[in-house]
């Protein structure tokens, strides 16, 4: 247990290494979780870091640059939120390390902006007192003043500043002009920031000499003097919670939300996918007509367009999935869902705390694994990291969608559901169930039956602003397009080369690809994969899929485009596999991607987060074994059912 914790500590110090800029004073944003530090960071630096309405969104330090009106260049550091300077989880440790000047590759900040949620001064101000004691020049950014005003909380900043002994300014981090007063302060010399203690060395120990209770009394006194000693709970949030947290209605709501999400991914995406498809065909036809027959045309049409095109088609589905995720994140619903599912997760030895990291893994396992830093229990954190890849990441969506589109007929089930959406939902559920199985096994092997901490904040609900959702979607789209234009395209081209060279010997009869490197490699791999129903084309497509899973699809596009005799281009991948693979093979391949044990960047992240090669190797091993075994069972059951 302690060894594990040590490795966790050592490791995130390494992982958090930020590129060190030479000049410029360093300004750190510090505050309770969910008070709007990242929103403020984004407004100041023009960055687009993730902002969402729950505690623990930021888990590593992020740096940005800010040029003040007077032309002073500052380095601004966004940090994970923390309730105190006595860290309870690896993400809080990151913040405390920075404040103490212990962070690797980063100096101690020259100044600190204490971000404070104006709707919750009582809790937030205690941290300000603790930070002030560190001796760093600091100012207070009184954030969320728009929400506070709406709830009748009006703070006299001059008086608060007098009481705290540091400058205080109001901010509204979600408005473009919401940080004007803070910008002015950033231009002021450090002495104005209670500059008497600029060169105080970092304290030797972070043990708080002053008790929480003493700070609480101080805050209480300040609040009384400001006339703010009344609680103003958000009654609308309370009313929503009566429905959302209701044992029956709340559970039904959770199911409906999740289910709608998957139905929408198929239901809404059809038309835009059609447009993208026709556009790719149009481009491919144009290139075919414009270029003479030869290797250049083949590279462009069979490699680039066929490969990237088949992946690009899935952009609408990915955006729909993220649309739902973004709304859930922004509204404040996620911690509630975690609360509802805590008991269920407890039955497999986890807690509701693992819910958000696991949910994030549906986007991509990497942020999910990073988000596990918010879990205080080292054991729970490790188990969460290990099962995160079983949550179906969005990179697998193209693979699922391709196979479902090719093999599952489009029809309604029971009048309301759509069969393809149901199957997709089933695949996601299969991932979740196997993750629970693994967690349960881990529980049988390790747990000592002690209650694990929950202590999870339920933030007040916010309306998701259309602007934030639009920005979020735009970011996802650009990440996806960069992937398509970058790694996916590069691998696709590599794949085309492997599949085209060496050229077949004179007098060869079969398609050229069978004589190429890819053909040889595929036939070698097929010895491992034949028992689970994969032909050599599939086997070879799995290899570049290790670097980016979508490439499995584009590689199939390329392989089949080159296998095809004559001129029919690759846009017809779906009907092609539909008639050349058996249903048993398709089901087996779908099963393979439920476990999809071969994402290299996930393994690298696991190595970084656990501080060694052991866990990534265990992960790769168990996922591969599980995938092969499950495919074997599925394939042979399907063959026995007559679908071979």
């Amino acid at each position: 247990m302690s060894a594990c914790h040590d490795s966790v500590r050592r490791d995130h110090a390494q992982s958090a290494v930020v590129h060190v800029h030479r000049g410029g004073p360093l300004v750190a944003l510090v505050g309770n979780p969910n008070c709007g530090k990242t929103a403020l960071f984004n407004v100041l630096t023009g960055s687009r870091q993730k902002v969402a309405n729950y505690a623990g969104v930021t888990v590593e330090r992020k740096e940005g640059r800010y040029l003040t009106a007077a032309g002073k260049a500052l380095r601004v550091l966004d940090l994970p939120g923390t309730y105190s300077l006595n860290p309870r989880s690896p993400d809080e440790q990151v913040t405390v390390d920075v404040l103490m000047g212990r962070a690797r590759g980063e100096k101690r900040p020259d100044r600190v902006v204490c971000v404070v949620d104006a709707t919750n001064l009582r809790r937030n101000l205690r941290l300000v007192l603790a930070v002030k004691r560190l001796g760093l020049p600091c100012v207070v950014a009184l954030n969320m003043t728009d929400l506070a005003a709406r709830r009748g909380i009006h703070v006299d900043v001059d008086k608060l500043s007098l009481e705290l002994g540091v400058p205080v300014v109001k901010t509204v981090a979600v408005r473009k002009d919401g940080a004007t007063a803070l910008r002015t302060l950033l231009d002021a010399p450090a002495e104005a920031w209670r500059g008497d203690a600029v060169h105080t060395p970092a304290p030797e120990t972070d043990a708080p000499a002053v008790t929480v209770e003493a700070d609480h009394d101080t805050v209480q006194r300040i609040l009384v003097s400001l006339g703010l000693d009344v609680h103003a709970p958000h009654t609308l949030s309370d009313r929503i919670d009566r429905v959302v947290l209701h044992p029956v209605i709340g559970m039904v709501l959770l199911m409906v939300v999740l289910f709608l999400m998957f139905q929408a991914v198929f239901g809404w995406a059809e038309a835009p996918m059609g447009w993208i498809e026709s556009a790719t065909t149009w481009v491919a036809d144009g290139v075919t007509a414009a270029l003479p027959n030869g290797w250049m045309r083949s590279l462009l049409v069979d490699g680039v367009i066929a490969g990237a095109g088949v992946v690009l088609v899935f952009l609408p589905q990915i955006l729909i999935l993220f649309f739902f995720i973004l709304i859930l994140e922004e509204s404040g619903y996620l911690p509630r869902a975690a609360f509802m599912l805590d008991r269920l997760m407890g039955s497999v030895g986890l807690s509701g705390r693992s819910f958000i990291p696991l949910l994030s893994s549906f986007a991509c396992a990497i942020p999910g694994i990073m988000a596990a830093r918010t879990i205080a229990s080292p054991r729970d954190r490790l188990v969460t990291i290990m099962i995160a890849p079983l949550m179906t990441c969005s990179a697998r969506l193209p693979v699922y969608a391709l196979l479902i589109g090719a093999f599952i007929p489009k029809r309604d089930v029971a009048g309301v559901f759509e069969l393809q959406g149901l199957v997709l939902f089933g695949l996601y559920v299969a991932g979740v169930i196997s993750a629970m199985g693994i967690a349960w096994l881990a529980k049988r092997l390790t747990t000592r039956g002690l209650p694990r901490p929950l202590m999870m904040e339920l933030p007040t609900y916010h309306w998701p602003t259309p602007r934030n959702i639009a920005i979020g979607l735009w970011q996802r789209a650009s990440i996806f397009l960069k992937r398509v234009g970058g790694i996916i395209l590069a691998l696709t081209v590599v794949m085309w080369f492997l599949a085209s060279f060496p050229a077949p010997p004179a007098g060869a009869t079969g398609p050229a690809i069978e004589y190429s490197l890819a053909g040889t490699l595929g036939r070698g791999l097929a010895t491992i994969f034949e028992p689970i129903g994969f032909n050599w084309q599939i086997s070879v497509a799995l290899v570049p899929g290790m670097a980016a899973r979508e490439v499995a699809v584009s590689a199939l596009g390329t392989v089949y485009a080159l296998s095809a005799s004559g001129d029919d281009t690759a846009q017809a991948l779906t009907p092609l596999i539909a008639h050349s693979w058996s249903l048993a093979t398709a089901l087996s391949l779908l099963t393979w991607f439920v476990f999809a044990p071969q994402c290299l960047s996930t393994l690298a992240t696991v190595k970084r987060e656990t501080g060694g090669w052991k866990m990534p190797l265990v992960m790769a091993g168990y996922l591969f074994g599980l995938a092969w075994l499950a495919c074997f069972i599925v394939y042979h059951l399907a063959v026995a059912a007559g679908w071979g």
Partner: protein
Amino acid sequence: MFTLDRSDDFQLCRIERIHTPEHAPEWHDWLQELGFIPGEKVMLMARARPGGDPLVVRVGSSTFALRCAEAACIEVTLLDNATGAA
């Protein structure tokens, strides 16, 4: 005096003391840092069903989900819901 996990829903209480559980001594500080400090007013807002664990607890103007075992570290006395007096 009783512990918070035994409170009725929507009953206003005042925190008297935070226990330090033997199996998790760090919980004492962690709870205090969240705002569960003697003298503060708390209210149980909801319980997960079935099982009644975890709980939703209001302290100050924040809301937290706490496990029963965590709420059991918080010793409280009854306050009058209408007047806020003991």
